[in-house]
């Protein structure tokens, strides 16, 4: 577009600048919730999220904290949509100084340095953040969504269900958190179906459900008859073509009850409960809370299996999956953690 100076619109320019400023106010106002009253003796918890809580990852953390609030154990306030442009440090510092919460939960991805710097300056507050790094003394604990175990189980189901021997996976961005669940899913599919071919598409976005659906439809065009929906938009493609889908992050059966066979779910409940208990007992220390997001402690699970899906489930498949699930819980079977980027098309043995 050509840039043309416009000499007779100064007044108008000012009007629209005011408008932009007003709009910016409205936008930023939606992010912060009002602080609640303190002094009730409950543990005071603050949530600091880089994305909006409608984003599934942060949504899981938020949901667990809301549940503790509903149970009356904590006072909970949060700020979301803080972004990656430097506001995280300001929000954390301001909250730590003015609100003095006992615990701050949040996601540190994309804001690692800022979050760790603030944590070091407020050693009396427990900082518990989703992070790809390790914990730091004395008060910085980390967690992550370690849902590769239910992803493996879902892969076993998909491998058993597929009649075309082609399975589709649509993922957001190939970061370690996504790669390890996709790789575990592929390993599970190969465990029940040595002839399976797994097609993997990344849309390079955490949202864009339109693109996710198109990626899934392309896989359906290439004969995929079971789709794993790491992102929103994929279950819709399965429903439209009367195929089987597997949800992710939370139980997504409600999106298409006749098509979703199960979901790979993450539950922050055990992590949140453990940290609050520790803080209440005065015994909080910094640590890697990984185990609390795994199957053993209930932080990850395969949602209830729905056998009433198109084509049905073969005899004995559910029993096989449940047997493997029991082995994982008992600690006698370990799902490999592989964080390398899976290729677009993986053929078993190939």
């Amino acid at each position, binding site marked *: *577009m*050509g840039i*043309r100076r*416009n000499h*007779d*619109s100064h*007044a*108008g*320019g000012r*009007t*629209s*600048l005011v*408008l*932009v400023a007003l*709009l*910016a106010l*409205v*936008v930023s*106002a*939606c992010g912060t919730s009002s602080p609640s009253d303190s002094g009730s003796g409950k543990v005071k918890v603050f949530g600091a999220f880089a994305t*909006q*809580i*409608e*984003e599934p990852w942060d*949504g899981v953390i*938020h949901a667990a904290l809301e549940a503790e609030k509903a149970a009356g154990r904590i006072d909970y306030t949060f700020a979301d949509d803080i972004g990656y442009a430097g506001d995280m440090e300001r929000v954390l510092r301001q909250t730590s100084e003015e609100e003095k919460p006992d615990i701050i939960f949040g996601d540190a991805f994309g804001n690692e340095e800022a979050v760790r710097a603030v944590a070091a300056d407020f050693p009396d507050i427990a900082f518990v953040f989703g992070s790809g790094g390790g914990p730091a003394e004395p008060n910085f604990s980390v967690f992550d969504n370690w849902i590769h175990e239910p992803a493996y189980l879902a892969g076993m189901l998909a491998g058993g269900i597929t009649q075309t021997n082609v399975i*589709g996976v649509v993922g957001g961005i190939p970061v370690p958190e996504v790669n390890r669940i996709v790789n575990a899913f592929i390993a599970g599919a190969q465990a029940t179906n040595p002839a399976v071919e797994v*097609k*993997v*598409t*990344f*849309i*390079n*976005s955490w*949202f*864009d*459900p*339109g*693109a996710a*659906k*198109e*990626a899934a*439809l*392309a*896989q359906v*065009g*290439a004969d995929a008859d079971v789709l794993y929906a790491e992102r*929103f*938009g994929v279950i*819709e493609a399965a429903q*439209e073509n009367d195929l089987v889908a597997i949800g992710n992050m*939370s139980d*997504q059966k*409600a*999106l*298409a009850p006749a098509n979703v066979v199960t979901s790979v779910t993450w539950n922050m409940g055990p992590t949140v409960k453990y940290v609050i208990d520790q803080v209440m007992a005065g015994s909080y220390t910094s640590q890697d809370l990984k185990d609390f997001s795994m199957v053993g402690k209930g932080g990850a699970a395969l949602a209830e299996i729905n056998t009433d899906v198109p084509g049905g489930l073969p005899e004995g498949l559910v029993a096989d999956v449940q047997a493997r699930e029991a082995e994982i819980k008992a600690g006698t079977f370990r799902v490999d953690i592989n964080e390398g980027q899976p*290729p*677009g*098309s993986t*053929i078993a043995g190939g």
Partner: protein
Amino acid sequence: MTLLIDLLAATLRNATPLVYGTVGETYAERGGVLNLGIEGTMYAGAFVGFAAALATGSPLLGLVAAVGVGLLSGAVMALLTVTFGANQHVSGIGLTIGLIGASEFANRLIFRGGELQRIEPMPLINPLPDVGPVSAVFSQYGLTWVAFLLVVPLAWWVLQRSSFGLEIRAVGENPEAADAAGVSVPRTRYLALMIGGALMAVGGAFFTLALLGSFTLDIIAGRGWVCIALVIFGRWRIGRGVVGALLFSLIYSLQFRLQILPGFGDLPFELLLALPYLVVIGALALSGRNVAYPGAYLKPYRRS
């Protein structure tokens, strides 16, 4: 063969929101106003359409609501740029930021960050007789049929053949002459922006009412900006803009099918995802030389 049929069906499907957006933006720009509010208008159309459909249980009423918010959005853009004569770039970007913020605010107020809600989306329909596997190409959403069979021909006819279209083009090329000939410049620009806004909003509502049946953040994902480029690619002609939308959509749909072919594994998927954008940039660079912008492009009109 099946790949080709699948690809053609996908091309028409994915071109649909771009066609609504491109035709809508063409109306605004032929009237002399660059409407960068398109991304926000599509977003608001997607959200309001979904919320209304969920509340009433009728995707059709959702569509009506989307048209309403599009008309309103066009009117606000007209108020800023026609009545106040404000800078069009700033007004448009402000409108986009404002509409996205307002939609997400309303989304939070209504749904409280809970589980994703879904409506029964508009179904695929195929009014043509079954002629074997090729029929799959014509299994499309109602909004796709309406876009190609109704909106595009009608929009072309109105703009190029009707006296109202002549007025739009006149106020966009030479508002002084149009004014002297008795055409109300503000009224015509208001109408062009409002018609354009309604079309953009329908393009956005396509995602929530037909393609997905749900509203998620960032659902438009920059497709409004693609439409801005397509209007220039089409040199402000409806037909050429639609061809551009089809070309973009063809490559967009093709790359998803290439990514999962064995043998394409070594190619970075980011490159394939960027392909449609690279082609449009290339096409713009080639076809963009010597383009004639509408004469009154970006200029507010004042009688003096």
